[in-house]
């Protein structure tokens, strides 16, 4: 069966190496989904506060808050999530007490790796199962940790043979394993390590988890300044006679302007090699993921305006 396009999924985990712009892409994607009329939730897993700055709102909390029309934002808090889970799913008596729950969680999370992850992943799956939102976009953990997070329900299933947790992980696995419902979007920048990690991660997601890869976003793609004929003209413009002519016409030295253009051309070229490697390596495997290119944004600051630009760039990529 053909998998739905990126926006057709109900649960999308956005990951990538640290510093590649996961949060910006998550925010842009969520804004795009909401603008298409989807009731959308965007959730930040690492509460660093970056998501709030993408929408220029106050800090996001566990209780979701509408940050744009049709778009709600929250940040994950595994303890609050556990508390909600216990009261909703297990109908635990209040007598069990919050203190006991908190202590137990502390213990469980330290003792059995995977428990913290399943509580957070569980909350997101639950929002999908209960159809509270048409789409849930998760600004997930970095590529080094995402496989552990997404395979946690399976790991717990192996460790815990009986009990309520076991029953709970079964429905979670159903949601996570369904490629129509759930996908992972890997964000990379055109640089050596982000590309290498992306290639490895796509392989590991396929081999070690049941979650489908929805696509790869190549973020911060630099503009192509010149086509071949223009390059020749640019080279001629760098000759002394042309430089002098420009200097007198502009009333000042033009060299820094030409240097900046050369800098951009060089940077673009070295980055293009990494994009080629990404495309070729992913393309060589069966069933290559869709690649979405988002341009580098030359902006004074980042906020709602840049989030809108990312949303527009993603829209253009998804529609082409």
């Amino acid at each position, binding site marked *: 069966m053909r998998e739905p396009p990126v926006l057709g999924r109900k649960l999308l985990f956005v990951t990538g190496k640290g510093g590649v712009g996961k949060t910006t892409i998550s925010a842009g994607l969520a804004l795009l989904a909401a603008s298409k009329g989807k009731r959308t939730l965007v959730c930040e897993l*690492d509460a660093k506060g970056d998501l709030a700055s993408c929408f220029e709102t106050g800090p996001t909390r566990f209780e979701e808050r509408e940050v744009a029309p049709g778009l709600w934002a929250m940040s994950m808090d595994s303890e609050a999530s556990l508390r909600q889970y216990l009261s909703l799913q297990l109908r635990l008596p209040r007598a069990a007490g919050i203190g006991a729950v908190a202590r137990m969680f502390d213990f469980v999370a330290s003792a059995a790796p995977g428990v913290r992850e399943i509580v957070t992943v569980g909350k997101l799956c639950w929002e999908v199962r209960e159809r509270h939102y048409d789409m849930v976009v998760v600004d997930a953990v970095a590529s*080094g940790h995402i496989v552990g997070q997404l395979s946690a329900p399976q790991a717990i299933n192996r460790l815990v043979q009986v009990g309520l947790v076991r029953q709970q992980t079964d429905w979670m696995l159903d949601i996570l394993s369904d490629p129509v419902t759930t996908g992972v979007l890997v964000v990379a920048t055109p640089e*050596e390590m982000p590309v290498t990690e992306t290639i*490895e991660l796509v392989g590991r997601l396929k081999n070690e988890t049941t979650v489908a890869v929805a696509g790869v976003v190549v973020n911060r793609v630099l503009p192509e*300044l010149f086509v071949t004929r223009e390059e020749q003209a640019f080279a001629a413009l760098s000759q002394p006679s042309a430089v002098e002519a420009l200097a007198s*016409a502009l*009333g000042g030295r033009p060299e820094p*302007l030409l240097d900046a253009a050369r800098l*951009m051309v060089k940077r673009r070229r070295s980055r293009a090699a990494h994009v080629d490697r990404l495309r070729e390596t992913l393309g060589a495997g069966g069933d290559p993921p869709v690649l979405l290119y988002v341009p580098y944004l030359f902006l004074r600051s980042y906020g709602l305006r840049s989030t809108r630009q990312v949303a527009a760039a993603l829209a253009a990529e998804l529609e082409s």
Partner: protein
Amino acid sequence: MTGPGPGPTTIEALVAAKEIVVVCGPGGVGKTTVAASIAAMAACHLGGRVLVVTVDPARRLAQALGLPEPTRSPSSGRARSASGAQQVAAGAFARAGWAPRGELWAEMLDTKRSWDRLVSRHAPDKATARRILDNPLYQNISGRFVQSHDYMAVERLYELHAEGAYDLIVVDTPPTRNAVDFLLAPERMTDFFSSRLLRLLTVPYRSRLVDVASRPFYYVADRVLGSQFLQDIAEFFILFQTLSEGFVARAAEVQRLLADERTTFIVVSTLDMGQVREAEAFMRLLRAKRLHPGGLVLNRVLPTYLTEGGLAERSEQLSARAAELARELCSGGRAMEGFEPALVESVLSEVGTNFSNIALVAKREAAQRGELSRASDVVASIPELAEDVHDLAGVLGLGRYIWS
């Protein structure tokens, strides 16, 4: 008596006075490469035996340091290496055009092996050690426990320092969810072992029923996890607790070493806004913990000429007057004679727009740099380089920007 003189103002002066340099900062800023550069420069200029401990180097950087190609362990996905420290051959320095005064060694951190060694050292006897090492929960903890990378990096650092085989150790810190996790790792380890929960857990199963106070805890735990799993965990922790004393004592020593005068922290960041924010938070935490943030390395910064006065106006003119300038330049006897004016126009306009774009980012970076620089006496900047570092010459070339 005179007071202490002014502190070091260069990375060289800073590193010369230290035995341990911890290179830290947000993810994706190039910590590993910077750590390698500092170590390589120290080997060249300061002499002695210098070791760089890396966590997850890029393939070409690993090759540049003479490390075997990292293979990824299937359970954790992290790089693992079968060997210990490797010396970077003098020939490699010679090929890069350098004659080092000292030796450069490199080692890749192996979390799993470090855990195993730690267990073997602190276990009361060989049989207990074996039982712990074979326990499936232990496998999970050492292979997947996210925080174990953080803890093991500092633990290995302590071990290497105690062995005393190196004059200077430069450590690249592991990728963590948050830069501060790494710093808190020894404390967390201590907290874990001294927590009431661990004691609660390791109380033999039957006697729990008598303890009224902890009954709700077991009630919840049983319902959620099932008593069999709970018993499995308890068994493991009863074994694991035999290590407690050694672990807690060791974590305290590791903590002391990090706070020692001989240790300095060098924070690496780019001038990207999110990363600057994280780096600032990290510096604050270092001070709050009474650790010694010695220097700041700003990586991949745009050249400063971009912010020089008058250039913005010139670039705007170039775009606005592109057609007129192109016609002029392409006319008979002028510099661009023979070129199509429309082609030259689009090139001029593109050059102008590009400059405005880059200058905007450069100005933002300059503001961020001003803010960050106030937090440290030693600030070094590395320009954004077109090429990735792929050999020792590249590592040393980068080092030149950092060093003095």
